[in-house]
């Protein structure tokens, strides 16, 4: 069944629902004033995200700065004790008289570890009081001291040490959140979606940690302003650039070198940041004794840049971009390169002390090109996914309400595959039809401090998707046979979907240090990743929801207990979750994704479910800090045409998952850190029997994912030596050992004949990373 309607009718439906936005909140009779401002770092002038603002007096109230360092709070007239705190910074405590609307900006001074004790009386307990659950924030400082593969600091790999977030494979930056698939994570870099967040076939993430200011990940209970993916939101913000001084910092490592330069353009008005990184594994190839190796290439680079202009007190413009590329080439035979490009232009405007607005224009692009230069068979395959994205977000604070509403429209273009070839080639030029679609969403949410111990965050997101012509759109039956084919002209709506996504979370606080929270979230997804491998691959392509493929839908409920103790030094949380997923996608056997015009004929649709418990204990302060995370979970899928319709374990179903992180400041100059991870092996399908076809052994496979790969575990160490303080420039050495006890963890398993006795068959495990030492020299001046 196809719904054909003109585009303007489709928008009329949306216009109607905009009315949802305008709902009233009764104003109170008491005189209410607002306090707002921006919180920055004194040294760099960078805005601080998530800094805490607390007031006590006539009434107790608190808030945190938003992604732009801005806060706004409304309170009855009176005198208040104000405390501004942020981890790793000295607190500001002062008295204020609130008898008019106030705009106050603060700038915090970075603190040494020991001084934390001084501010302990105002240590944050937001994790207890905030109704938001399923959220994790990564401290960029932690990222810098946690050991990783080849000494490359990596946000995505550090995230994988948190409960509920699991790596896709050994050394892989792809990740699964609460039983979701890799493509069900919304990865945003300054609001721009990043489609392939990895370099070198998944071993490095595209995020250069030098350029990153803040990392927040939502595993559940996503606020209504986020949407479009089922499992998680990873919101990464780049540094704005030092507003006060010029600084340069960088590092020279075994695999890559990096350099970042930042500084003011016009003092206190505008600044810039530019950060680059390049690997040079291939540089060694030039010295290879074997001359044939010298023409090969294998490297990646990326570039982050950002600049901002403060037009006046009310208006700021930001422009940021990312450009990264991987290049792999075998001389005269084969070339392969791929990469992401993103650009974000944002205008922040303060309408009044209560209304804050952000308007963003965003561009995202991912593409790859494969070139085969073998004579007579040369060809070039290219594929692109490109987005234009408009976001308008308002934040409005009123009494005990923090209201957020806005609109988001994304235009997607997908070029699934274009094959070009020279005249002499036996390969024919061919193009798989482009696909276009528009995703729009309207949302509204309210974070309401209903009473001193009860907080409620609730919201609604109305998301719609329209698949647009031009092109031939086919419809397939259950067995993948073509039923019909219809031509649609440019801009015509082929299929549209409308989904209402409620988001509710609530917290009840027993006292200052203990609370329970609950949440319900619905998410939908209209972009689906087609991948032939369980690891992230550059040739992965996306398809849009269509007349055959319905939007994926996930409903998640979660309950949690949060408790801080020892004066908020320790934080403990326990969360249980249950997630239902509809319209999940798998392939039929023998699906060939390469240049496939009819890929939807090969898709199977089914359901998923995931549930588990996550325990987390973190020591936040002191010379020794770190955390322990444990997850007990189950992840299953059900497809009518797989496994006789019975539920089976998803590949990423890992029953037990433990991670330990310890960071110890041994002296003024030495910091030692270590991580340990353990998880149950992936659910895998193995051959239970075998037979021969024309003398070749073929395997007879078990039920889907009925077996377990060997357990995964690994211990890493790292040590950082800071240079002597007080010099004009600072430098540090980082030493690391990945996989200290040289555990041979499974990268892949293959089933093959024993080379010495072909009648015997065996399971062969490939382990990629044994013990790997690394050293990096970092500098800053």
């Amino acid at each position, binding site marked *: 069944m196809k719904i054909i309607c003109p585009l303007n009718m489709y928008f009329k439906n949306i216009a109607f629902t905009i009315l949802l936005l305008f709902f009233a909140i009764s104003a109170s009779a008491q005189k209410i004033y607002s306090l707002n401002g921006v919180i920055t770092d004194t040294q760099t002038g960078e805005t601080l995200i998530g800094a805490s603002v607390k007031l006590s007096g006539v009434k107790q109230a608190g808030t945190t700065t938003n992604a732009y360092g801005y806060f706004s709070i409304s309170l009855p007239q009176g005198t208040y004790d104000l405390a501004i705190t942020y981890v790793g910074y000295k607190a500001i405590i002062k008295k204020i008289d609130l008898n008019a609307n106030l705009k106050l900006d603060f700038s915090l001074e970075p603190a040494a570890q020991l001084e934390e004790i001084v501010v302990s009386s105002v240590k944050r307990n937001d994790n207890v009081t905030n109704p938001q659950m399923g959220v994790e924030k990564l401290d960029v400082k932690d990222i810098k001291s946690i050991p990783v593969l080849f000494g490359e600091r990596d946000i995505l790999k550090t995230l994988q040490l948190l409960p509920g977030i699991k790596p896709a*494979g050994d050394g892989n930056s792809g990740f699964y959140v609460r039983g979701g698939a890799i493509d069900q994570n919304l990865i945003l870099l300054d609001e721009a979606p990043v489609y392939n967040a990895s370099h*070198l*076939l998944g071993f490095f993430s595209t995020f250069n940690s030098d350029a990153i200011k803040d990392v927040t990940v939502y595993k559940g209970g996503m606020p209504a302003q986020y949407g479009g993916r089922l499992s998680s939101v990873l919101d990464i913000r780049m540094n704005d650039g030092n507003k006060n001084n010029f600084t340069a910092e960088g590092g020279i490592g075994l695999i890559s070198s990096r350099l970042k330069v930042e500084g003011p353009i016009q003092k206190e008005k505008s600044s810039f940041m530019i950060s680059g990184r390049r690997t040079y594994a291939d540089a060694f190839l030039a010295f290879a004794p074997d*001359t044939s*190796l010298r023409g090969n290439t*294998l490297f990646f680079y990326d570039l982050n840049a950002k600049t901002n202009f403060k037009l006046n007190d009310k208006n700021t413009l930001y422009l940021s971009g990312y450009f990264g590329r991987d290049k792999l080439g*075998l001389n005269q*035979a*084969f070339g*392969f390169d791929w990469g992401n490009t993103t650009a974000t232009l944002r205008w922040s405007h303060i309408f009044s002390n209560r209304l804050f607005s952000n308007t963003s224009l965003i561009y995202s692009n991912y593409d790859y090109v*494969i070139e*085969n230069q*073998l004579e007579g068979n040369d*060809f070039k395959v290219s594929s692109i996914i490109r987005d234009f994205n408009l976001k308008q977000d308002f934040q409005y604070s009123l009494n005990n309400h923090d209201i957020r509403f806005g609109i988001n429209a994304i235009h997607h273009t997908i070029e699934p595959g274009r*094959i070009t070839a020279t005249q002499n080639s*036996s*390969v*024919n030029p061919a193009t798989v039809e482009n696909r276009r679609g528009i995703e729009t969403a309207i949302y509204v949410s309210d974070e309401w401090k209903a009473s001193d111990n009860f907080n409620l965050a609730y919201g609604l997101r109305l998301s719609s998707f329209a698949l647009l012509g031009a092109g031939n759109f086919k419809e397939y039956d259950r067995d993948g046979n073509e039923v019909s084919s219809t031509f649609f002209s440019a801009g015509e709506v082929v299929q549209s979907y409308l989904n209402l996504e409620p988001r509710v979370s609530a917290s009840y606080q027993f006292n200052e240090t203990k609370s329970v929270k609950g949440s319900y979230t619905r998410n939908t997804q209209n972009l689906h990743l087609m991948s*032939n*491998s*369980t*690891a992230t*691959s550059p040739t992965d392509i996306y398809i849009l929801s269509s007349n055959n493929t319905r939007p994926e839908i996930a409903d998640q409920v979660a309950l949690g207990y949060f408790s801080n103790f020892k004066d908020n030094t320790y934080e403990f949380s326990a969360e249980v979750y249950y997630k239902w997923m509809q319209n999940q996608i798998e392939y039929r*056997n*023998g699906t*060939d994704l390469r*240049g496939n015009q009819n890929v939807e004929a090969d898709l199977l649709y089914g359901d998923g479910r995931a549930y588990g418990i996550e325990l987390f204990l973190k020591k936040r302060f002191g010379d020794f800090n770190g955390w322990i995370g444990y997850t007990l979970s189950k992840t299953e899928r059900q497809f009518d045409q*797989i496994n006789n319709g019975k539920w089976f374990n998803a*590949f990423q179903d890992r029953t037990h998952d433990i991670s330990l992180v310890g960071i110890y400041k041994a002296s003024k100059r030495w910091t030692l850190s270590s991580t340990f991870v353990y998880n149950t092996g992936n659910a895998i*399908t*193995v*051959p*239970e*029997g*075998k*037979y021969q*076809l024309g003398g*070749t*052994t073929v*395997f*007879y*496979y*078990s039920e*889907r994912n009925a077996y377990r790969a*060997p357990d995964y575990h690994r211990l890493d160490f790292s040590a950082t030596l800071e240079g002597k303080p007080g010099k004009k420039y600072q430098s540090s050495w980082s030493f690391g050992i990945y996989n200290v006890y040289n555990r*041979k963890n499974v*990268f*892949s*398993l*293959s089933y093959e004949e024993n080379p010495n006795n*072909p*009648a*015997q*068959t065996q*399971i*062969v495990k490939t*382990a990629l*990373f*044994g013990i*790997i030492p690394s050293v990096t020299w970092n500098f800053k001046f």
Partner: protein
Amino acid sequence: MRNNIFILGFVSILAFTSCEEVIEIETNEQEPAVVIEAAITDRTERQTINLSQTVPFNLSFQTVPLRNATVTVTETGGPTLTFTEDQPGVYRSTTFRGSYGKTYNLRVTVNGNTYTASSKMPNKVPLDSLSVSEVTFFGETRKYVKVHYQDPAQETNAYNYVISINGKKINSFYVDNDRFNNGNYINNTIFTDDPEIVSGDEIMIDFQNITPEIYRYFFAITQIGGNGGPPVAPSNPDTNLSNGALGYFSTHTSDKRVFRVR
């Protein structure tokens, strides 16, 4: 092919650390399944159908023939061929030649269960010639066999190259189709792994035109092999046989050529 180079590319950087090891995973023993390997060719010969059973993964391979089966192949609107057990598990017809464009219907009854399949004999695409080419990867130059033929433009074609070196059949499947090169003159290299082809070797190629279903069957088997990173869950390839039998029923052409590598 593409995938192999792909793997080669990044494995070269990780060569100093990656390793392979044989491991044990204890598997359950399943009920043996019926395996049918059936084909009708366009050669005038006694057509052969093999019936056997699966054996457990961790046991040494030995063929377990399925005996005393009733095996027939009926041409739609034509005669029925009866296959008789020639050796244990090996069933042969009288001399017969499959006709292009005709549909054949297989029926096997063994141990009280009946399995059926049908397949249409594709048109013949003649093999033009064979040659040997040298390709260099990572400083190593090796010889590979190339097949040359004209792909017909007006139809969808699929091919199976069965290659034997010095009388020993290579135990890999080399299937191809014309999705990317329909209607062109084709020069395809068969990237054989082991043994390496050297001067003086006697090469035999059985050049077969297969049906799209059988192409997909063998493509699925090669894909399950996991070229290009950890594969998605492997499973038994979809077959045209009914009732849960493993194997396939193929109708294909056959053009056998022998030559010696200079």
